[in-house]
């Protein structure tokens, strides 16, 4: 399956000459500015499947053009966003979504960073704790004092400078 897709992708890549040019959407008529905004917000999160990382909003490739028309028609027919997304996912898989759906296989992606953050916070608390112990446990010894006297004796006029 994935090999077929790769080959297909490679073929399409060589065929679509206009990978990098930006697309325009003047062909679509909307009844209100809010509708247009809604359409754009929907397709900007959908991936153009034949491009190198461009959204359906920005891509000028043939396929992107066709998919834009398809999404537009579905919207005009009164279909909900979820229906449109389900339809595209059924056809192209999760790959078409820039925002991966939250489901067990993507828990790693969506919750991993927070688990990591929790671990980091625990480590931070430990590090700070250990630091405090270290500070507590080290009183000034006579040797330190002698050394201090020696340095201060030499550099008595030196002021402590910050930063």
């Amino acid at each position, binding site marked *: 399956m994935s090999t077929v897709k790769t080959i297909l992708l490679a073929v399409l890549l060589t065929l679509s*000459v206009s990978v990098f*040019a930006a697309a325009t959407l003047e062909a679509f008529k909307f009844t209100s500015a809010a509708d247009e905004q809604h359409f754009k917000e929907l397709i900007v999160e959908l991936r153009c499947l034949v491009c190198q990382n461009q959204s359906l909003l920005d891509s000028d490739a043939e396929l992107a053009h066709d998919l834009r028309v398809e999404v537009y028609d579905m919207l005009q027919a009164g279909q909900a966003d979820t229906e449109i997304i389900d339809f595209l996912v059924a056809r192209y898989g999760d790959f078409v979504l820039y925002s991966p759906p939250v489901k067990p296989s993507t828990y790693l992606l969506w919750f991993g960073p927070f688990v990591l953050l929790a671990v980091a916070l625990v480590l*931070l608390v430990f590090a700070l704790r250990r630091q405090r112990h270290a500070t507590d446990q080290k009183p000034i010894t006579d040797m330190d004092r002698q050394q201090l006297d020696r340095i201060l004796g030499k550099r008595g006029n030196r002021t402590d400078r910050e930063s």
Partner: protein
Amino acid sequence: MIPELGHFALILALAMALVLAIMPMIGSLSNTPSWVALARPLAWGQFTFLLIAFACLVNAFLVNDFSVTYVAQHGNTRLPNIYKISAVWGAHEGSLLLWAFILSGWTLAVALFARQLPDVMIGRVLAVMGMISIGFLSFMLFTSNPFARTFPVPLEGGDLNPLLQDFGLAIHPPMLYMGYVGLSVAFSFAIAALVGGKLDISWARWSRPWTTVAWVFLTIGITLGSWWAYYELGWGGWWFWDPVENASFMPWLAATALIHSLAVTEKRGAFKRWTVLLSLLAFSLSLLGTFLVRSGVLTSVHSFAADPARGLFILIFLCIVIGGSLVLYAWRAPNVTSGGEFSALSRESLLLGNNLLLIMITAFILLGTLAPLIYDAFGWGKISVGFPWFNTMFVIFTPFLVLLMGLGPLTRWKQQDAADLVRQFRIALLASLGAGLLAALPLLHEGSVYAGLAVMLSVWLTTTLLLSLRKRLRHRQGFGAFLKDIRARGGGSYYGMLLAHFGVAVFTIGVTFVTLFDVEKDVRMAPGETLELAGYTFRFDGVEKIQGPNYRADRGTLHVSRHGQDVAVLKPEKRTYLVQTRPMTEAGIDAGFFRDIYVSLGEALDAGSWSLRLYYKPLVRWIWLGGILIAIGGLLAAFDRRYRLAVRRDVAATAAPPGDALATEGPA
């Protein structure tokens, strides 16, 4: 003949690198000064031969020597000279040569400018850089030789990718590579210190300016890349969380953590092991970035090379460098004494928090960048991880970073009284909350929680910086206090910090406002037609055909006015290059401090009318202005007078009896 000279020069450079990697290192361990002393001349030799190789390739492009495969693929007789030169690093083989050349340049710079270092140390640092060089030179010679010939010789070259025929992208890779490769200096210092088992404050002081300079280059490189994407890709975006963009952002974040951690190590002697680990991490991420871009494992806008054999080589190289350095770390680091105790609330603890956050952000970007690969490899399905995911994560994590950035400069080293800190930042907190609330409410614009958050963070950052400045100047009076302070104390580090942090505030505002409040419209316009967008009137004056040096183009003319007054005449183009015929958009942009007007030309429709996309982008320049401020701040810090004074003091300390060593470790 000349390409063969280049090829031989490459081989000789590899020979130099081999000797450089082995002799001084063994010499330093077996106490053989004559072997250690080879390091500097070898650094010279390696640089000279790579300079020759590089010049040979530049020459091959300039004289259109299409018998060289690489030139035949990416050169063209009609390419303007500046792009003939930038074509040298426009694709895989040449960009590797640039990498190796820059590495030899950094190696030479260390040999020349790090005179105060003990010979043993410099021998080891240069040896480690030589090892990295071996990796890149053999990679080039065995898998990607830029001087390989081709027969029969084609009459015309395949031309440089039109996307790269642009000034911004001509200088973006060298800047980025200066940063990537510059981090190898920090890496080599860390490895050399681990080998010697001597991780002290002077190690941090040596490493610090080098790391900062590399970080400055990286900052400039990323800023340039973002600016280029904005005006060249034609959809007005400045960052897409593309894998290649992430590949440059991750080392930047790690290097940002590193320069802060180095500050603590240098001033307080704390975080030594952590600083070493970050040095290893930052350069490893640079290598990973090169790997991601060059192996073509990720499909993305900017990745122009794909070859699995090369990918395998880099992967093995990556494993050796990262694995080897981590093994060395695991072996040596436990012996490092931790010094410089501090309490739970202190500048050290805040910087530790900042470091952890930066590494967290790096980690999740790495996760998001590699997730599609990982999922594919384990058969969990093909997924895309795009800007919605990255933006969500970034917006969750970074505000905490900015909060800490505000507190850090106000906090004392070692121990800070909480009540005193609160008293200091009270005003800043009130000001930022007030400003944030104002921006969140629908008074000036439609209002937005995100705008409120961004304004709050920026005001917080700016006011805390001002408070810190007032604190620093408290003993000096009058208007000239600032200048007097600079004259008396130098303070490049301090003022650099102020400027760079202020750059973050500017950047935050720019990003948020352009994201929230940009206006964009897809239109169809006939010649003479006018249209309103965000208070501006656009009049379309038609499209003419023009002829460039190596492309044909349709060039539109739009007349922009506001309240009857002329604002700009924009000339967006749609180019078709003669060799690689994909159409390219050249946006028409009227840049301004408060807003950009941005027009890109779409398709020709019937009867002289065209499809166009018009944008109004408020404060978009602040994004790159922020980047520039951050870079200038870094430069000020890197050239702090202190490092030059430290040179003399270190020399004096080396001469003094060991009992006096403590005297040099006071707060500088």
